[in-house]
């Protein structure tokens, strides 16, 4: 029974595909998968916008949107209609073709990246050997779209925003990939499906990579780099409202702006999905006795949990300064992820036991303190005192 529920979408797809003649089946199967991915994640995008606005509102002691529909739940529909009916304004000096292509060049790769993330048992759209490489390859293409948007608008602010965004994305791509490499080393495969299979629960022991010293450090590094990669607070300098208004999409209006918004969120889902795949056991339940819950429910539950974390971080942390951003990337994240590679190797070659927990724990915690201290070196930090008018 639970197995049938787990595979319900897979059997449904097979049933639909079986209706068509044999020569059409490949195409129909691909179309159904693509349509499902686009529909589900676009729906999740709508849900996330309202959750984010509500959550941020609560953090900032406001109510958030509550006028459209019950509890403001229909707000995304209103926003979507507004975006579609708005006039599409293109600056006269803008480079029209590049200006038009930039949002498309952002949305297409981020949806492509979702194709290799396994969202359930037997539910990866494409299961290829080099899946992880595919993910990072299409992710790299988004940098170009950011440049296209910033350059083609012929606006100083948007070009500045694009420069900032690209500098940040290139810097944080290194720790992002290096922290993913530790998992590849331990599993011995670049295929996301195999990486998830390696994290199956073993009785009372969750097999998640998070519960190892290298996995813990790797997960935190990956999550930080992913936040920076998707330009979210506290790494939202490229669109810092108070400094450069909206960064690279300042000259976009109407549905093109909505596309940028969509691309950013889908990118966040994709990279969170990869974090789940690499470190949080993918669609596996933490314990074997919980495996009766459908696998996709676990995946989307974890995804929503990570999104809640991202919203919480956005509501809590102030924006970084450019020098802090670069120092953090090159002086902390990069050495830390290199050390983590060594830690993973040590973990692999020491036999199971308490000793390797101790050694690897020291290998992770030691550099963390040393590097963290060195970030504050030469800076005169003191408690900020406020003076209020009497």
């Amino acid at each position, binding site marked *: 029974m639970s197995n049938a529920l787990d595979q319900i979408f897979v059997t449904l797809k097979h049933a639909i595909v079986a209706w068509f003649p044999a020569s059409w089946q490949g195409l129909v199967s691909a179309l159904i998968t693509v349509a499902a991915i686009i529909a589900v994640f676009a729906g999740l995008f709508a849900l996330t916008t309202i959750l984010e606005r509500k959550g941020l509102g609560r953090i900032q002691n406001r109510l958030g949107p509550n006028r459209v529909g019950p509890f403001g739940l229909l707000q995304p529909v209103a926003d979507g209609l507004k975006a579609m009916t708005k006039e599409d304004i293109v600056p006269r000096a803008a*480079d029209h073709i*590049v200006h038009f292509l930039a949002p498309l060049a952002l949305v297409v790769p981020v949806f492509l990246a979702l194709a290799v993330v396994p969202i359930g048992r037997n539910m990866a759209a494409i299961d*290829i050997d080099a899946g992880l*490489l595919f993910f*990072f390859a299409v992710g*790299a*293409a988004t940098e170009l779209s950011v440049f296209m948007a910033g*350059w083609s608008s012929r606006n100083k602010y948007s070009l500045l925003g694009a420069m900032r965004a690209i500098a940040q994305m290139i810097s944080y791509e290194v720790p992002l990939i290096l922290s993913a490499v530790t998992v590849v080393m331990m599993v011995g495969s670049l295929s996301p499906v195999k990486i998830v299979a390696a994290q199956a629960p073993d009785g009372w022991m969750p097999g998640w990579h998070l519960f190892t010293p290298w996995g813990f450090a790797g997960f935190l590094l990956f999550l930080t780099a992913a936040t920076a990669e998707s330009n979210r607070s506290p790494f939202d300098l490229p669109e810092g409202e108070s400094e450069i208004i909206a960064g690279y999409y300042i000259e976009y209006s109407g549905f093109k702006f909505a596309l940028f918004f969509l691309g950013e969120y889908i990118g966040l889902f994709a990279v969170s999905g990869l974090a789940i795949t690499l470190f949080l056991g993918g669609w596996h339940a933490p314990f074997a006795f919980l495996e009766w819950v459908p696998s996709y429910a676990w995946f989307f539950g974890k995804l929503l949990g990570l999104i809640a974390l991202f919203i919480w971080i956005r509501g809590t942390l102030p924006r970084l300064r450019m020098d802090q951003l670069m120092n953090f990337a090159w002086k902390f994240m990069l050495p830390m992820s290199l050390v983590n590679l060594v830690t993973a190797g040590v973990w692999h070659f020491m036999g199971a036991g308490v000793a390797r927990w101790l050694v690897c724990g020291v290998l992770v915690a030691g550099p963390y303190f040393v590097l963290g201290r060195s970030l504050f070196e030469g800076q005169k930090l003191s408690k900020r005192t406020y003076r209020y008018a009497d």
Partner: protein
Amino acid sequence: MTASFAIIGLLTIAGATAAMSLRNLVHCALALTVAFAGLAALYLQLDAQFVGFAQILVYVGAVAILIVFAVLLTRSSETPGASRLTRAGIWGVAIAVVVFGLLTAMISSSPAVRHPAPPIPAATVRDIGNQLMTKYILPLEIIGLLLTAALIGAVIIAMPEKEAE
């Protein structure tokens, strides 16, 4: 020649041609990216997954950005107004056509073409990794050392010079 090969090939050639002939340098760089992506698609069509994805990661992700930034930071994006059809340009095209014709004639008449192609070994990403870590470990280490040296060199160049006392 399959339909997908024709489409990808045409796209690649169109990108490369545009990269040569467009007036605006940033447009040229973007067109070159299309050519890079087309090459990657050709590799993928030949079942060379690793090379294909590495091509996208390195060329579309890094080299294109580098080119675009170099163009942006070194000269203004004003397009030169000079005519495209110059004497040197016409001579260049003529010489290129002659060389291409000669090469085609030579290659098609050479005995090497008539030999049947050897079977292509299927190289998965796993095989490439194993080879890199066993047989080709020395070149890999040397490249690693070279890149590290380049990285340190770049950092030293970028460091602010201390004022001489």
